[in-house]
């Protein structure tokens, strides 16, 4: 047993890095509206007219931004927007779903905008549904929601465990795009949680009131809690559907090392998307979140570059059923 290949040690820690990225994105979505409010205060020279609470916001933001710029009104424009569409140091980056929705609602190809989705599309072709696991601000809340349901489980709460057909989300995507085309308005942005989170945080912080989107998002949270774990992402999210389609032949995917596997099934238990890593069934839904790599007690999960999953490799070599079959075979 000397030839057992260990996965590259970094992979085990990717899940922590992922939480850091999710937290950073979410905090950015909260900080950016505050920066905007601060910029408007600066632009109007209104410090003396501010309320005490606004003054303290001004002071805090001034302390935070002084190291970066001398001209806050114009110098803090490097990062603007949300994950739906944002401006990142002069580069516009948009969600592929925003582009798809706009093409359908306008029924034209406006190339300057379509090209803003180029980087996300290429990244999705390589990494699959990584947006869902690594960036999506709604995922951050949905995973905390899962944690909450596990925590409430100790107090007798039974979270929903219903299963539906995963292909339902492709229907949602198709219907959303067709409705966008019929109404001539990007309606798909109304049912897409990350777009909603970005907008509603801005509305709540900078414009002083949440909108209708928040109600929709709370309903999806309750759906996840009471009906199916991560149900919205798995069964209904139109963006998830688009990413799954684009990531069908992704280059980077997770593979089970059969020599190390002991059939403990922790990977299946921890998989937020209810996939079946134990039986090599990742499919186009896997978002490369690396939670299964992090939890695997025997280092049996690793990243590989391949455009397809392996067929079911059989029972893990450290497991009992494999040993039994070996013994009976010999």
């Amino acid at each position, binding site marked *: 047993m000397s030839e057992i290949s260990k996965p590259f040690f970094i992979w085990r820690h990717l899940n922590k890095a992922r939480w850091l990225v999710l937290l950073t994105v979410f905090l950015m979505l909260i900080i*950016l*509206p505050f920066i*905007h*409010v601060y*910029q*408007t205060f600066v*632009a*109007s020279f209104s410090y003396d007219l501010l309320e005490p609470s606004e003054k303290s916001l001004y002071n805090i933001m001034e302390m935070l931004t002084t190291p970066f710029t001398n001209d806050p*009104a114009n110098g803090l*424009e490097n990062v*603007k*927007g*949300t994950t*739906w*569409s*944002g*401006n990142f140091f002069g580069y*516009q980056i*948009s969600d592929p779903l*925003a582009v798809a*929705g*706009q093409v359908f*609602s*306008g*029924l034209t190809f*406006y190339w*300057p*905008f379509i090209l*803003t989705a180029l980087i996300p599309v290429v990244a999705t072709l390589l990494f699959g549904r990584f947006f869902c696991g690594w960036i999506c601000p709604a995922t951050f809340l949905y995973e905390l929601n899962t944690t909450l349901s596990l925590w409430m489980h100790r107090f007798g709460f039974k979270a929903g465990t219903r299963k539906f057909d995963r292909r339902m989300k492709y229907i949602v995507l198709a219907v959303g795009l067709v409705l966008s085309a019929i*109404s*001539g*308005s*990007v*309606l798909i*942005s*109304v049912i897409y949680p990350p*777009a909603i989170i*970005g*907008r509603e945080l*801005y*509305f709540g912080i*900078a*414009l002083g009131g949440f*909108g*209708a*989107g928040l109600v929709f998002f709370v309903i999806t949270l309750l759906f996840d809690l009471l009906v199916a774990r991560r149900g919205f992402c798995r069964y209904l999210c139109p963006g998830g559907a688009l990413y799954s389609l684009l990531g069908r032949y992704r280059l980077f995917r997770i593979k089970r090392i059969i020599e190390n596997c002991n059939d403990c099934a922790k990977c299946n238990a921890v998989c937020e998307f209810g996939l079946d890593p134990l039986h090599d069934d990742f499919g186009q839904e896997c978002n490369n979140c690396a939670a299964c790599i992090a939890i695997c007690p025997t280092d049996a999960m690793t990243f590989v570059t391949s455009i397809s999953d392996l067929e079911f490799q059989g029972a893990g070599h450290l497991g009992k059923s494999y040993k039994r079959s070996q013994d009976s075979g010999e």
Partner: protein
Amino acid sequence: MDRRNFLKEIIAGAVATAALSSGQAEAAFTAQTNQRYLRPPGSLKEEEFESRCIRCGQCGEVCPNRCIEYFNLENGIDSLNTPYITPRAKACILCMKCGDICPTDAIKELDRTAEDILGYVQMGKARVNENLCLSYQGKTCGVCYRACPLADVAIKVQLLEQPIVLDACVGCGLCERSCIQIPQAIKIIPDHILNKAG
């Protein structure tokens, strides 16, 4: 509070919520087309704007005047989360930052020059109600003229500071914002309403 009153209040609350939401639902499907709102400067025509805008909210996030707000359901579901300006509350200062950042060019990218603004910005047109205007009633005022960023091009004054709106008016709304008369004697007629009227 005893149980009966408690139940009553809950039922009353539920009924009120249902009534409210049915009203909202109605509003969602019958757009109030004569609502007076302006799109940000350099926006496409109303229908094209709704199909081009992806509701990313960046225009509001760069507006230094914080005059850009976003529709909830009050103007129909097609306008949900699209940007608008209420000139009386806060008018556009024509800084053109929203057009710079708009990823879909639903708001055109324009320079902050008189040529670009006069050539491409069509938010609406100001209209003076002479029965309300102080200057037309013999009290010299002229506030709208002084508020206009395109004075003498978009608006001129005659004797007693009586304002006359010219064709070049782009409809930024600063005159309506500054009018000291209540209700305002000068108001912007938004572009989408002008187009409907023909």
